[in-house]
């Protein structure tokens, strides 16, 4: 199987460490993975702001870069959800449809396709797991508290394979962090309040790290943590699973 690595635009520019960890983790698991260098952005920032009609060139670029792969894997729930729902092509809709079925967020790729059962890594810290909304409610990476349905969690499943990692319980396990795309600046007051409340929940429950499958949420919470001078750090789940130690 050939896997194309899809790295969100802001991860490429600001959090390359998480992208490197994703690449290394897949390579360690024996995956033939490569990174199409001309990729840019999935188009979500425009689409969620009401400008989906401007995402044609992003779509074209995406299809051009990622055709020919068996799977497309990305360390971001929200970008994957966007592609799954909104990748279209005027020229070749059948190809777009096929591609929508091949794109996977990293965690679900590991649990559902590679069916990873063990990881030889350690992360001896107290970790707060932030369920990003798009990953959880959009991609069903884990059960949501709204539904009367059996509990499950793919990220937790993977984190449980990491030695000495303690997942701390939260007061509101799946409340939104408030990033929301351009919402984070368009409705800055509410966005920040939501982020501060999320961070407070983690801090109140004694975490050393906050992890998630989405760096947009982490970037927002990190901004708040740094502003308040907190020692708590954010870390993308790929880095934990890849064996990062501090």
């Amino acid at each position, binding site marked *: 199987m050939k896997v194309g690595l899809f*790295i969100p*635009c802001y*991860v*490429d*520019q*600001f*959090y*390359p460490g998480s*992208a490197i960890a994703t690449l290394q983790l897949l390579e360690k698991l024996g995956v033939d993975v*490569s*990174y199409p*260098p*001309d990729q*840019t*952005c999935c188009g979500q*920032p*425009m*689409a*969620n*702001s*009401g*400008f989906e*009609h*401007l*995402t044609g*060139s*992003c779509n074209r*670029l995406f299809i051009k870069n990622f055709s020919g792969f068996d799977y497309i894997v990305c360390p971001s729930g929200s970008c994957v959800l966007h592609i799954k729902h909104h990748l279209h092509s005027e020229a070749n809709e059948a190809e777009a449809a096929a591609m929508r079925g091949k794109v996977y967020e990293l965690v679900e790729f590991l649990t559902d396709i590679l069916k990873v059962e063990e990881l030889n890594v350690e992360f001896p810290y107290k970790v707060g797991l932030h369920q990003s*909304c*798009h990953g959880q*409610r959009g991609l069903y990476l884990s059960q*949501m*508290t*709204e*539904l*009367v349905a059996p509990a499950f969690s793919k990220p937790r499943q993977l984190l449980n394979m990491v030695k000495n990692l303690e997942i701390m319980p939260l007061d509101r396990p799946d*409340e*939104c962090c*408030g*990033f*929301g*795309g351009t*919402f*984070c*600046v*368009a*409705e*800055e*007051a*509410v*966005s*920040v*309040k*939501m*982020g501060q*409340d999320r961070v407070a929940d983690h801090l109140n429950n004694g975490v050393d790290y906050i992890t998630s499958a989405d760096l947009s949420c982490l970037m927002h919470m990190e*901004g*708040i943590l*740094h*502003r308040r001078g907190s020692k708590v750090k954010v870390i993308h789940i790929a880095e934990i699973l890849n064996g990062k130690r501090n």
Partner: protein
Amino acid sequence: MAEVFNKDENRVDWHDETLWFIRKKRDLAVKKIDNWEELRETASQIKNNVLSNLSNYLQEFEAKASANGVIVHWAADAVEHNQIVLNLLKQQGITQMVKSKSMLTEECHLNEHLEANGINVIDSDLGERIVQLAKEMPSHIVLPCIHKKKEEIGELFHEHLGTPAGNADPQFLTETARQHLRDVFLTRRAALTGVNFAIAETGEFVVCTNEGNADMGAHLADIHIASMGIEKIIPERKHLSVFLRLLTRSATGQPITTYSSHFSKPRQGKEMHIILVDNGRSIQLGREDFRNSLKCIRCGACMNTCPVYRRSGGHSYHYAISGPIGAILAPNLDMEKYADLPFASTLCGSCSNVCPVKIDIHDQLYKWRQVIVQKGYAPTAKKVSMQAMANVLGSSWKYHAAGKAARTVMHLAPFAVNNKFNPWYKHRDMPEVPEKSFGEWYKINRNK
């Protein structure tokens, strides 16, 4: 939108905690129903059927209700609704009316119209009476004064109902309201209620309250007027079992409201009227992407769970119906006025998953954004920046150049972005600037 509300952080926390508590009560109640999700799916399908057969059901309801002696009126819009109510009162020389909770009448601004025409209206639901005394709109469709603290309510009662200053005891204040409203119920010849559900099969309609105020008004009045949105129809009486099981558990976590009153025929010698109101609903029905919003049974669960609503309050939505459901109903009535509402959301999806009739609220929020922008109601600055963004992100070399430029500026001249003109920076630090982008790292470390 929420800047004002947000200025008092303690108050925001209080409002947020109160509504989250109600969400938790809802969770406790629904988890006791093993087949809750099946119930939601069933209700959703019943409502889908209703929307697809609405014309027939409305006519069936009208025929059955009329045969029962109920007088059926049709109002194309809010103005006509208000006129019908006024005429009914004037015909009987009535100048005072008692009203129980009806969000439809808020939508129509009925009270204002009646007051302007010499009719005194008293809202009998305690929460509604409180906001009436405060001269405010309700901030939540089920909990009208959830935004008010008990001290504020105590002050209102002191000013308007003569209770002792400083008394904020809920028991005492409720007892005061009971005595005050009892006198109103006993003296009003006209009572107006809302309608929770109307049954096409039998012509009856159901009104649900915890306080008993709808009944106290209706059973003592000479004329009972019921105002109803045309989408409140359900096909058969037995379907009430599904909706009454879902409604209050979703709204407040109670298994059912204290009273679920089924009105079929007027009392002997008295009048019962029902006004079927359109006011934009038939237009919404024609919008393929948004018609599902008409399935709403007005439970308010979406508001209780919405992290944005909880921290902004209902008034920041500047429409009779607030929260996620308000944001997908309002633009249909006036897209320009309510253009901001669908954007006041992170699209987290919690609302869609508590909705007892499975309205795809968060998907509709996304779709409304596209419509509103296409219709030209996006701010110019946004249009320009989005076009620029699409331009850059649609081209590999432009994207890489822009990314490098941004990182360089942030690295060499952080003050250029770390300042008050950057809304992100107001309360959050910017991310650290890495030496290389992932693309640059990959080129060096992987490409042979």
